[in-house]
């Protein structure tokens, strides 16, 4: 084992030293280091991987960036922040990647972001939703693609404010994502609607929801509306139990992420009707950008894209655009290029904001419905992410300014 690691390290050291003498002698590839929770969260990461592979294939088919092919070296973090740091270390030290990308869980994203800051490497986060990664723990080396928790909460709060409901209750997984989703939603909705009351909250541990007991505890408070932040297997359990018990009847439900195929599709015939959700109606986005993406994806994989596919695809497109604009793999030049870079995504052109390194990519809201035994989104609207941000002055107070 040790010998192999040593040989491996020596080879890597040799290749790095070959690559060092300057851009002229660098091989004709640019290496991108990618980290995600492949073994920990396959239902998201498999479509995600397909997405970025498609993007890389397309970029390279067009001749790459400045005549150089892009090469992605992908690592599994198993869902653990400490292992993600190990992987990041290997990518930067041994594989000599130009920048880091990826991650799903917020804490993994934050760990890699802090590593990037320490080692002065560019990190483009794909999925992590936590506001901290661009705001309270933001740093100049880290950018983030997906619309943040705050943006999604703001989109949903806009819709929720139109409802007549006055008594609200919340169900969210008991960790940072659930807590901050609820906190932001509450704050924004209460600001728009001072007349509403928050009558009950439930915080089941992630993966271990006791759905019946949770729903009855909510029901006992007689709310008019429910905010749900559960996803995955917990969501399925909650929905099944709620359908049987009739907890959702006569109540508005606003729900984070539920319209994403990753979480909506497993619900199948149990899909509740009329929930207001964020999501991705891949069957219903008729823009040219999306149709081209959809066709390419389906031709290559004979499967429909999930939101993860869009994230992976857009992430690598964004990185290609940064590299093209920077014309270099120097970190400072790439950061300068990334701020304000324009790139295409299946959701249309977006950019990374200079002020907080958040992309302007948006999300869809819509209502859930049951069609042919499957869940779909109807009445979908695309919201630009940047329209749901606080004012620039406020963002400056949220983010360390140095």
């Amino acid at each position, binding site marked *: 084992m040790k010998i192999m690691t040593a040989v491996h*390290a020596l080879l890597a050291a040799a290749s790095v030293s070959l690559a060092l003498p300057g851009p002229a002698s660098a091989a004709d590839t640019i290496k991108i280091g990618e980290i995600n929770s492949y073994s920990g969260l396959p239902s998201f*990461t498999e479509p995600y991987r397909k997405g970025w592979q498609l993007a890389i294939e397309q970029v390279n088919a067009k001749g790459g960036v400045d005549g150089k092919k892009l090469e992605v070296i992908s690592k599994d973090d198993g869902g*653990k922040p400490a292992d993600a740091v190990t992987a990041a270390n290997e990518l930067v030290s041994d594989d000599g990647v130009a920048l880091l990308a990826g991650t799903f869980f917020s804490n993994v994203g934050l760990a890699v972001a*802090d*590593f990037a800051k320490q080692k002065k490497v560019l990190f483009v986060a794909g999925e992590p939703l936590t506001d901290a990664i661009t705001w309270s723990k933001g740093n100049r080396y880290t950018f983030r693609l997906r619309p943040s928790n705050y943006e999604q909460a703001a989109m949903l709060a806009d819709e929720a404010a139109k409802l007549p409901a006055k008594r609200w209750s919340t169900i969210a997984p008991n960790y940072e994502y659930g807590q901050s989703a609820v906190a932001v939603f509450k704050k924004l909705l209460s600001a728009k609607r001072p007349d509403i009351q928050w009558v009950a909250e439930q*915080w089941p541990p992630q993966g271990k929801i*006791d759905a019946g007991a949770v729903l009855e505890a909510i029901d006992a408070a007689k709310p008019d509306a429910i905010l749900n932040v559960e996803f995955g297997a917990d969501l399925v359990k909650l929905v*099944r139990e709620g359908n049987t018990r009739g907890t959702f009847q006569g109540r508005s439900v606003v729900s984070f992420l539920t319209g994403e195929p990753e979480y909506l599709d497993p*619900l199948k015939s149990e899909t509740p009707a009329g929930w207001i959700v964020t999501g991705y109606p891949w069957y219903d986005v008729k823009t040219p950008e999306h149709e081209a993406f959809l066709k390419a994806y389906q031709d290559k994989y004979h499967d429909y894209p999930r939101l993860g596919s869009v994230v992976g695809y857009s992430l690598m497109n964004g990185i290609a655009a940064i590299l093209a604009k920077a014309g270099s793999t120097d970190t400072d030049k790439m950061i300068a290029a990334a701020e304000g870079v324009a790139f295409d995504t299946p959701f249309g052109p977006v950019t990374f904001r200079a002020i907080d390194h958040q992309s302007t990519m948006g999300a869809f809201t819509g209502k859930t419905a049951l069609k042919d035994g499957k869940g779909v989104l109807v009445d979908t609207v695309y919201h630009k992410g940047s329209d749901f941000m606080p004012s620039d002055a406020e963002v400056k107070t949220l983010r360390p300014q140095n």
Partner: protein
Amino acid sequence: MQLFVIQLLSGLASAASLFLVASGLSLIFGVTRIVNFAHGAFYMLGAYIAFTLTDRFSGPFGFWGGMVAAAIAVGLIGAAFEMLLLRRIYRAPELFQLLATFGATLVVEDLVLLIWGPDDLLAPRAPGLAGAVMVVGKRFPSYDLFLIVLGPVVLGLLWLILHRTRWGVLVRAATQDRDMVAALGVNQKWLFTGVFALGALLAGLGGALEAPRGAVNHAMDINIIVEIFVVVVIGGLGSIEGAFVASILVSLVNAFGILVLPRISLVLVFLLMAVVLVIRPWGLFGRKEGAARASGAVVVTPWRPLDRNGRLAALALVAVAALLPAVLGPYGLAVATEVAIFVLFAASLHLLASVGGLASFGHAAFLGLGCYGAALAMKALGLSMVPALIAGPLMAVAGAAIIGWFAVKLSGVYFAMLTLAFAQILWSIAFQWVPVTGGDNGLLGIWPSAWVASPARYYWLTLALVTLAVAGLRVVIFSPFGYALRAARDSDLRAEAIGIDRRLVQWRAFMIAGMSAGLAGALFAFLKGSVFPDTMGVSTSIDGLVMVLLGGVETVSGPIIGAVFYKTLSIWLVNHTDYSKLVLGLVIIALVLVFPAGVAGSFRWPGARAKARSRAPA
């Protein structure tokens, strides 16, 4: 009143599925004394097989037939697992079988992914029980009512089997004293196989019954395994009635607890277990384990401190390790640093588990306290790296003093579970106390000072501290204190007779082990630059045990070899295959079969000669 009745029923329905799985675990433990980590995997397999069958064969017959067939299939898998694997290693040291079941769990996790794919699956609802009935004016799922009835029915059936059949009599006899049963000429092999199959069948049935009301997903095993251990321990190991009462207790306290404290579920079962174990050390229905007749013969060769040549060899090894920066790059050094840190972690657990005979399932708590101690010293107190490296172990030793004081009152699996409970309580504090610990988003920016910022220097610092600490642990092992610790492990009564205060000795050992793990944790924090609650999670504790067991419980140097081997292998595998769990699991199973005394211990296995020698002078 309405809410009370409904919460009561909801709690009872949850209790029923918990009971099915837990009763199987309790049976298996009671008879075979195996801590069966694969029980969660059996549960998950039951759900997946039930999904496939009920999805394909619709209608009432297809559905209920599918449920039963899934349970039977898992029972057969359990029997095969016992016959092919566990049967070969019953003579290995206590807890060693845990390694095999852990390996099997890893294998099953990846197999499920390969066979059924990554997506969550929705099994059909039960025909005839798909809807709800009105109870006290509210809709209550009829399937839940069915579960509420099923729980006591299964309990009754198990009672009949255990009390009215010859096989059941033997099972109960073996639960009380399996050596005596063996001495009376009962074929233990088939008894064990039968019990294991029945236990697996119950787990499979529990999983199958869960399928129609949730999502079948590949985290089911992890999400239930710890909870059912807790239920079994609260009820009393080996007691079916205890498992029944405990599952009701856990579910009801949860159902009503969340009405008052919505965030309680995260930590509730562990609080409950800690309280029960502190008041009733052997669980509600459990009995003090019989004298350790079966495990008493475990240690076969007396340990000796390193002689002159041994010391030279150890020095040479450290020198070689110190030269690694000449050949390794920054990443290789980071891995080497991590390996060194886990060597210390494993060595500290070894002091407890092997030398003290106190296998802790919560040792990661002290690794975590070390991490947080160092991180908070830096973040909250503004200290620099060196004082932070001292603060880590200090915080760990403080925690160990408190936890150890309660824990050393127990022994065996109860000790293991109480340490697990405390570790989980600490974990949930780190997880929930966001203003101080940052919650699950952790504490960031814990990087080493400039003078050791380069990977090579940090590696040397780690290597130096780890070498000193491991050497210190060895000195402890061979000091009079170490002998007293081993005496207390081997014979409580005789140790007491010669004036050894067992609890005091073990309490001190607990603190030494905690402090060493805390040092490892502080070093780990600075290596990674950040601290997260998952460092003190169950899986880190299990990793530590796996390292100690792989190295060999009966050796002094085992944990070092085990840690180097396991850590390097798992990092390498994650890097080189998408199915690292499958390969790692198979490697562990293969090692268990080839080296039933651990990798290091096997240089002396089989120990027949050694046993005779060590017995003679006693």
